[in-house]
């Protein structure tokens, strides 16, 4: 029998980063309200950057998020470098890509094993799993530790990176460290295979809703840094046109801004990257996708976690390749490239674990005078609500706790990073 009246109010969704509420109101079988409220405190990073020396920007903005600290730092450095005419060396580009894989692995492992898997195994957190399935938890911790150690070798620590600076690095791993990381990444392959195996067995909910998918794209690589902004609805724009994609606006129930591009909403993140850049995945990652049953274009948002597992395979294999390249060409202790000028405007973009991230700075005489950061979770919020509005009417014959769990799992599937997403946008540059 259909539920004529239903009220769901999940105060502070758990196992996500930051504070969000799910509010659903159904009266006489009609959906009256279906919101993902963002109740995180406003944080005002863009306002705080104003007046700071450009060199501090990446250190301040990495503090937006503890999970994607390397991503924020990288996007910030690219924005500053584009503003000040800095072209980083080939070695810097390789090290940044390797560092990025460390963060991608860390974040995806955390999300797949510790935040999502408990739902699929019917427990409230990873802690009971330590007793019931210790090998699964130990595997997750082992893989996550290697990801963290990779970032630590390159930039001091994953949260918050130290050695990344405008124009390069202030510290370099030794050849021995790189060799050891390479060996450990190779030794991790059975754990990566077991992760793929686990996600071929776990059943993610069935739900289809086609939407627009947006990700960075570059020829010849599965793009995480720079490139152009590509849409599954066709076309691509240069990074400097990011505002034409994001079209930010405010809604009353959220301290995070909403975005839309060609449709009412779009999706960013692992699933969007998978749909747009599938051809560029490492062959082993393509095999993993086939094993899990993913084939572009995937339109079930719950499968974002499965796409993350495919990326775990890609990033670990590409990290091995990058270690090989760096060892072969040899590391030199390079001084960071000096800025060509001290005033200018620049955009930096990265596809961080949760999707496309933009930083845009205006710098005058070495001080930041304008800043705009657009965060993946902020871009996904409208799409999550679109999914919720499509999902709830199909579930009205189910019991409220079941509907609530399906909605919580949907929100978690996007791996939202809410403390990132709040407060991000300024409307004017001064």
């Amino acid at each position, binding site marked *: 029998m259909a539920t004529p009246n239903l009220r769901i109010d999940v105060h*502070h969704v*758990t*196992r*996500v*980063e930051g504070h969000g509420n799910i509010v659903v109101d159904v009266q006489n079988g009609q959906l009256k309200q279906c919101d993902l409220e963002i109740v995180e*405190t*406003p*944080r*005002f990073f*863009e*306002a*705080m950057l*104003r*007046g*700071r*020396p450009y060199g*501090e920007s990446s*250190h*301040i903005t990495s*503090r*937006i*998020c*503890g*999970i994607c*600290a390397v991503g924020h730092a990288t996007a910030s450095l690219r924005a500053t470098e584009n503003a000040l005419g800095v072209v980083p060396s080939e070695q810097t580009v390789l090290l940044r890509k390797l560092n990025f894989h460390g963060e991608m692995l860390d974040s995806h492992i*955390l999300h797949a094993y*510790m*935040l999502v898997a*408990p739902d699929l195994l019917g427990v*409230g*957190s*990873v*802690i009971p799993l*330590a007793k019931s399935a210790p090998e699964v938890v130990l595997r997750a*911790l082992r893989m*996550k*530790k290697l990801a*963290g150690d990779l970032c630590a070798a390159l*930039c*001091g*620590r994953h*949260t*918050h990176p*130290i*050695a990344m*600076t405008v124009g390069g*690095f*202030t*510290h370099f791993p030794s050849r021995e460290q790189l060799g050891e990381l390479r060996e450990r990444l190779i030794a991790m392959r059975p754990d990566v295979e077991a992760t793929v195996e686990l996600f071929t067995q776990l059943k993610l909910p069935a739900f289809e809703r086609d939407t627009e998918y947006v990700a960075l794209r570059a020829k010849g690589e599965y793009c995480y840094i720079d490139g152009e902004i590509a849409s599954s609805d066709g076309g691509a724009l240069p990074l400097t046109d990011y505002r034409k994609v994001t079209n930010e606006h*405010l809604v*009353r129930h959220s*301290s995070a801004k909403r975005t839309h591009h060609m449709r009412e909403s779009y999706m960013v993140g692992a699933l969007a990257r998978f749909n747009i850049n599938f051809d560029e995945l490492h062959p082993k990652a393509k095999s993993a996708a086939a094993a899990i049953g993913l084939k572009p274009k995937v339109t079930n948002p719950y499968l974002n976690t499965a796409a993350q597992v495919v990326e775990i395979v890609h990033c670990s294999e590409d990290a091995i390749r990058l270690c090989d390249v760096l060892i072969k060409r040899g590391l030199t202790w390079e001084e960071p490239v000096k800025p060509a000028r001290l005033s200018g405007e620049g955009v930096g973009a990265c596809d961080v674990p949760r999707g496309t991230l933009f930083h845009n700075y205006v710098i005058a005489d070495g001080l930041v005078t304008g800043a705009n950061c657009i965060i993946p979770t902020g871009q996904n919020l409208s799409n999550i609500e679109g999914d919720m509005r499509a999902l709830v009417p199909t579930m009205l014959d189910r019991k409220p706790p079941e509907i609530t769990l399906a909605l919580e799992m949907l929100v978690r599937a996007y791996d939202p990073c809410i*403390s*990132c997403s709040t*407060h*991000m*946008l*300024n*409307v*004017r540059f001064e």
Partner: protein
Amino acid sequence: MSAKPKIAFYEFTSCEGCQLTVVDSLQLYPELLEAVDIVRFREAMSEMGDDYAIAFIEGSCSRPSDEAPIKAIREKAALVVALGACAHLGGINTIRNRHDLGEVRRFVYGDKAEWYDTYPARPISAVIKVDAAIPGCPIDRHEFVRTVKRLLQGRAPELPDHPLCVECKLKENVCLYLRGTTCLGPIVRAGCDAICPTYGDSCEGCRGLVPNPNIEHLKEVLTEHGLSVDQTLAKMTQFLTYQVMEMEAAGHGDPQPAH
């Protein structure tokens, strides 16, 4: 043997990176889970316990509506620990305290600024009594585990009260002053193993000032090395704005930020 002590994690204005570092600490010391019973850790678990002896609070208090939940934690917990620079010092969130907050809200939220409640960001100790602090942005995982051990043994955690330079020398790092870079090492509390200078960056002060920092002497040393006093003291407005503004209010008048 009594039941395992119950501990809870809470977060206010922050990046949740210190709680992630707690997760990383468990990678190093999984046996910690045998010694305590975690009843609340929203970022990692759905279970929500309301009965706990030790509360770890990450993040600053940055709006009036956060004060009531912070006070409620104090009423329940026997011990409250500030976790990381935002909770301990106010941290990066306090940069905005130097600006006109009405203007800051308008800058980010435009004509919808009134929707978003805020006030000057502050450390948790500005709202309730705090029993201990684990400094740093983020916290040091070894120091976290040391602190938990001491709390479980009923001993007060101790923070080093010597400046960072001591640790930096023991690491045999080349002094950044000799490389022409400013650094807050002489006045900032040690305990991080000088991780930033070791990775080529100067100390930004995330662990807070040593007791009675000798700022006059710092100025002399900077002048000796031909480094800018203004630029160095301006670095204090990255993590230490709340403390700097307190010093100014107390009439020390010094240091003034350069920007």
